[in-house]
């Protein structure tokens, strides 16, 4: 049986850890601090899958019924 990746599940959108530079441009776009982003837990199954550490910011590319595709950001927390 092949290994199953959670990210292949139809209701799990694409998650990726973003680099420092991209994070800066995101934060300056919304005029916020990193701590004001929505959160994702480090024990979250998907956090574990992509190997995110506390303090990383995860970019989530959601399939949206209204916008087609929407970017969302979550800060990894304890």
């Amino acid at each position, binding site marked *: 049986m092949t290994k199953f990746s959670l990210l292949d599940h139809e209701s799990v959108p694409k998650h990726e850890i973003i680099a420092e530079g991209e994070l800066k441009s995101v934060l300056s776009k919304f005029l916020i601090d990193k701590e004001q982003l929505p959160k994702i*837990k480090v024990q*979250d199954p998907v956090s574990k899958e992509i190997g995110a550490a506390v303090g990383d910011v995860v970019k989530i590319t959601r399939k*949206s019924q209204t*916008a087609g595709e929407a970017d969302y950001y979550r800060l990894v927390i304890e």
Partner: protein
Amino acid sequence: MSISEATIDSMIKDLPFPSSTLNALREDVLKAGVSKKEMEEIIEKAMEEYEVSCIEPCDAAGVVAAQSIGEPGTQMTMRTFHYAGVAEINVTLGLPRLIEIVDARKIPSTPMMTIALSKNDPEDYAYHREKTRALAWEIEATKIDHIADVTTDLSQMKLIIDLHEKAMEGRNITIDQVKDKFNEELNVLVNISPDIDNQIVITPGEPSYRELLQLAKSIHNVTLKGIEGIKRVVVRKEGEEYTLYTEGSALRDVLQFEGVDRARTSTNNINEIYEVLGVEAARNAIIKEATDTLREQGLTVDIRHIMLVADIMTCDGEVKQIGRHGISGEKASVFARAAFEVTVNHLLDAGMRGDVDKLEGVTENIIVGQPIRMGTGDVHLVSRKTGRVEPEEIKTEEE
């Protein structure tokens, strides 16, 4: 003279539209064939339309969402049980289900799974009735009542279990498996009867009536085969494909089975989705379950309102309920919390701790009688003095 595809692409590339709008615009323009001047005009009009349909800054999005879901909610049936189109499986619908979703209950009152089957080749599970049936028996929890009659022999101080051969065959379980399972689970003496076919005799650890009666009860709870908590599995054919529906939910266990399509299998238990697939999948599940519940009742609520609710419920990385122990109970303001529920306790606790309320939210400002910081109330006007205005001048104007 219409412009080329590449020109159109470069013209719409930098527009601030969401991708669905961009694609629709691109397709329509390509189909119609427009000149450069027309294209510019279209873009201008589209931008205008887009700005009109965007939410205004400082608009009370949450209140609008609450009312937009609440009003149709008054028309929902109070208590409905329905067979939801799925063969014989009972699911909670209507208002009770909606409340269950926003309350983020750990276990819904009628948990249910939809198990999609793998369909990699034409001989795979999804197209194969026998394979599907066999898998269904593997998943469904088999208890002793399904395959046998149990009699309590008080004179001999033992339980006699007469297994039905046909039922065992159907569920693909053998007498030895039953015996081993009881041995493992109950810590009692289990024997296969030497004289009579398909009979198991169980003798309690110590010969007392209490023990015997207790044992007679507890053997009904032993899961001999399958997944604990899956009470029933129904096989349905949809189009070309077989799908399993289960009463009871155990997503993590089911995903381990061979033949289950792990990418498309789902449950209506949102908490389980959160634990197995993560917070983003849980958010999607909240949206799906809430829209399905509303749609089934014939109510249309714009999905944006439900998306807002789902976002708020999942914004801290876990699924929080809308209520005392969730969103409303965690507000920063003392007044806002006191206005919601258990007023006296909140005020008392805040007083003892010496909490400070900065009056930044809506509720607390209404309580103290100030303009709220929404809409025009959130805008502060600062004027730059250009020249000195004589007090006398103002006076005369007023008069």
